[in-house]
């Protein structure tokens, strides 16, 4: 990685930006709108990271895991492909199409594979498909130096790079994809290097997280989540949020709302004032998962199959605005990012700290 991408080499005071929207009627939108939205908040990033995730973009391969890969060289690519070949049925593989632009440079090799776990390997592992895929992703990220799985969900995909988000969107030709929901991020790294793998979103299976803020509890959260087989090796705090959601929702069976009561747990004095049933539930979640309480400023959008979730830290130390227009729900760090693509809205408001906003495609 070139030294200019490290924090401290470039310093422009600003803050990250997040934006996302979901068409609750399942209608597909190309990547143009989300690029326009995040571009409105250009001043919040400093060119050290931008990224997007779209849901519903691979209908022709919707039953296959779409594995998006960064490789630093052809050697590790070969090594990783051998690994993938050994564990998966690869139905399709290709370079992810990009549009060359002078604003995005030094790109790694960027490849995409549509895969299904090999039945024999899956049976041998005694795992379900999701767990099998997630373990393979961690294995690649941990043991194959210079190879990174940056997206591995079904019928969704992440696209990220070092650069301003609008340039990243252009680079990945997002206008050629159609999704029912999009999330986006403009990065301003404060504590960790700006590198390709460190751009948002951070994904595992169909979860994708974009985050504005800084997790004060990162190391406590990391130590806790690594006990359950997750590995934080992408050099930034946000990835831990993705793994916490995956652990609580997929592995522990919590609802998204319950998971949010762990991540942004109410304060004890608020819990004391709750009615009995609610108080017991809140207490239970705080006690059992105390190591997964996320402190410090954050506004987060979580993308998942069929929905978007937005949440702020309990003290609301970062901006977040939610709006609705017809069948679309918009979420962004600043109102202007919503107005850029929806000049008039039916409703616009700022959720409270710790308040969960969930918008899902009507079934």
């Amino acid at each position: 990685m070139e030294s200019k991408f490290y924090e401290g080499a470039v310093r422009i005071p600003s803050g990250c930006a997040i934006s996302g929207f979901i068409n609750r009627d399942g209608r597909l939108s190309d990547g143009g709108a989300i690029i326009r939205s995040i571009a409105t908040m250009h001043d919040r990033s400093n060119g050290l990271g931008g990224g997007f995730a779209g849901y519903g973009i691979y209908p022709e391969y919707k039953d296959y895991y779409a594995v998006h890969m960064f490789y630093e060289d052809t050697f590790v690519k070969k090594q990783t492909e051998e690994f993938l070949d050994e564990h998966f049925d690869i139905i399709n593989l290709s370079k992810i199409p990009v549009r060359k632009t002078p604003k995005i440079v030094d790109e790694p090799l960027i490849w995409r594979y549509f895969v299904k776990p090999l039945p024999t390997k899956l049976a041998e592992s005694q795992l379900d498909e999701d767990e099998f895929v997630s373990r393979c992703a961690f294995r690649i990220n941990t043991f194959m130096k210079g190879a990174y799985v940056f997206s591995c969900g079904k019928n969704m995909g992440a696209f990220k790079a070092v650069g301003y988000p609008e340039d990243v969107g252009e680079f990945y030709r997002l206008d050629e994809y159609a999704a029912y929901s999009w999330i986006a991020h403009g990065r301003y790294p404060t504590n960790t290097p700006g590198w390709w793998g460190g751009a948002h979103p951070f994904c595992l299976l169909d979860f994708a997280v974009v985050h504005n803020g800084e997790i004060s509890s990162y190391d406590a959260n990391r130590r806790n989540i690594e006990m359950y087989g997750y590995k934080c090796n992408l050099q930034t705090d946000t990835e831990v949020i993705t793994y916490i959601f995956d652990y609580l929702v997929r592995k522990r069976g919590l609802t998204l709302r319950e998971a949010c009561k762990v991540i942004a747990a109410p304060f004890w004095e608020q819990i004391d004032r709750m009615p009995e049933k609610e108080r017991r539930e809140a207490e239970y979640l705080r006690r059992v998962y105390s190591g997964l309480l996320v402190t410090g400023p954050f506004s987060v959008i979580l993308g998942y199959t069929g929905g978007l979730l937005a949440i702020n830290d309990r003290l609301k130390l970062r901006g977040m605005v939610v709006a609705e227009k017809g069948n679309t729900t918009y979420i962004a760090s600043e109102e202007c990012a919503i107005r850029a693509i929806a000049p008039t809205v039916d409703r616009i408001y700022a959720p409270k700290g710790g308040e969960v906003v969930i918008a899902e495609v009507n079934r």
Partner: protein
Amino acid sequence: MEIYAKGIESRQLNEIIRGCKDDKIVIRGVNGQRFIACGLDKKDVTAVGTIGNGAGAYMQGGVLRVEGSAQDATGDTMNGGEIYVGGRCGDAAGYAMRGGGIFIKGDVGYRAGVHMKQYGEHKPVIVVGGTAGCFLGEYLAGGVIVVLNTENKENPVGEDMARGMHGGRIYVRGRVTVPLPVSVTARKAGSEDMLFIKPYLESFCVAFGGSIKELTSDEFTLILPAAGNPYKRLYVHN
């Protein structure tokens, strides 16, 4: 002068505003440009659209009217002049304000009026037509904050309001049900207390409609610091 702001970035837009010799400036198509009317002295600036962060920061005088919403840090450390926001307003409005007034028709976000202070003739005021988020008037040292809750929502203010307040006054139309720190007292505002905020309510009604009579026909809660020096013995015993 009229400016169409679409596609003009913050720095350039502010240079145009500062360089403009007219007393009245109307900016249309504003969307997210920051620091508009920052350090404004005497002009009358109208911004149509969603004004960006730090609007009217360090304002000395003049008027900034926003026909639309304002984002975060509106009127940061302003010394004088007036800001009128016709929609909602984001977080941290009027942070460390030292004079002038901010009038918001809709809701204001978290941390409005944190560490406002007053000295002599310089008395800052924030009037919120809707509701206010948590930490309203935190560390308030002076000035006046009024929350009108004109739409009669259940909670006019959020939690942790007036934490560390040691000066100034907070008026809330209706009852305050959130817990208050021990260092402040809350009581029903009397007629003299109401006289104190009448000019501010007049400015609000002139800007956004409504009648003072109707607004003041309801009970207001007045929050004041409990004593002249509420933190005297917080950290040490002498």
